[in-house]
């Protein structure tokens, strides 16, 4: 169970450079969220996979409102800022998310499935933390869903095939944001190889996604994208 801290910045347990590193990593994700919202409003297609959206909002709710953040109150507020950005993404999920699936039968259950997904993830993350499996700032539960999100991004871009619906800014900001948090975890949680494995796996998938993005933009990728569109 995370220990509550009343300080804005927990400098007694974490050095200032480490807290700055964590803050910059979080900011990378704010950039990604803003770009996702902007691109969805422009293209009418939500690029972040539905499975990741429902997990993210649940995690941010649990860690922003239900558990204290060991890093300090400032970071609890940071998680809440993520949550409010993510509310916009959830709204867009309900509005445009069904375009991520092709079949009419799946489109018909899309919204109830999203509601179930959010509730299931919230309950799961809440008890995961309550059971004492997480770190004091939600890194393990966060990286479980981050790994899933990074894997789903790879699947979605290959399946969807229309590169203009995906943003290079999002690709880079999510990779860099996560990478900075990964460095933080390597320093702070060096005794937790499970978390570090999740960090490396996420990094590998994020780099693969960027590689695929550039490949689609080049000739080889055009062939892949055409294949994806043809199949869709």
């Amino acid at each position: 169970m995370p220990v509550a801290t009343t300080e804005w910045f927990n400098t007694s347990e974490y050095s200032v450079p480490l807290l700055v590193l964590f803050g910059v990593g979080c900011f990378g994700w704010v950039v990604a969220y803003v770009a996702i919202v902007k691109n969805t409003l422009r293209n009418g297609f939500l690029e972040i996979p539905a499975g990741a959206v429902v997990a993210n909002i649940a995690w941010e709710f649990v860690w922003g409102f239900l558990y204290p953040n060991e890093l300090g109150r400032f970071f609890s507020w940071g998680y809440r800022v993520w949550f409010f950005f993510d509310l916009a993404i959830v709204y867009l999920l309900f509005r445009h998310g069904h375009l991520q699936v092709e079949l009419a039968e799946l489109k018909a259950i899309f919204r109830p499935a999203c509601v179930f997904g959010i509730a299931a993830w919230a309950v799961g993350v809440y008890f995961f933390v309550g059971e004492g499996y997480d770190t004091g700032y939600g890194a393990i539960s966060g990286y479980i869903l981050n790994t899933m999100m990074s894997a789903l991004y790879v699947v979605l871009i290959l399946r969807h095939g229309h590169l203009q619906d995906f943003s290079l800014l999002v690709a880079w900001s999510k990779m860099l944001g996560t990478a900075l948090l990964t460095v933080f975890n390597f320093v702070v949680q060096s005794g937790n190889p499970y978390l570090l494995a999740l960090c490396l796996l996420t990094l590998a998938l994020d780099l693969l996604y960027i590689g695929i993005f550039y490949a689609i933009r080049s000739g080889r990728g055009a062939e892949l994208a055409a294949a994806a569109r043809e199949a869709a």
Partner: protein
Amino acid sequence: MGSELLVNTVDYTTPQLLFFAAGGIAWALAYLGVLREIVRQKFVEIPATAVCANIAWEFTWGIVYRTDLGTLFVWGYRLWFLLDVFIVWGLLRYGVRHLQTPRLREYFRLAVGFAILSFAATLYLLVRQGYDTPTGLVSGYMATLLMSALYIPQFFRERDRTPYSAFVAWCKLLGNGLVIGFCVLVYPENHFLQALCGITLVLDVYYVLLFHTRRVAQPA
């Protein structure tokens, strides 16, 4: 030490062990049902990602770590692993039909290999970190929940639902239900595990309902 016995009646009561054993048998039957369809229809009904997670879990808990339920159950986990080896073989041979993007087939086997290794590494470390129960059910239900969730969209996506087996659907539900009974009896204080069990059960029941309504409604 009870775990060294054939059946660990020191740490577990007979009803608890019966719940687990019956659930384990139901799962073995589900695997046999899946294998039958692989042979008959050249079709792997378990979603590819779930197959990768399963074989990784069974390798981790059947070969690397040892359940404390007793030697009989250790071999039961290994039997699951053996059956799943054949399912993985079927996946590598016929699993490409699940892909929605045909020209990406050349990457399918590579992706399966990568996924199995990734799941195995993370499950191994999750257990080493002390996050699992001595029976492997926290990591086990993480993998099972993933399978139960993926079954639903895959069932929808397949135009021909004939190869999906009612026998497998019911064995899966029954197997999970019985092992959930074990979890409720043995780990009542582990609310995370209970949450995983509850969500998995909801998804399994939904799949069985979906199976009977949609498959029956499918035109011949």
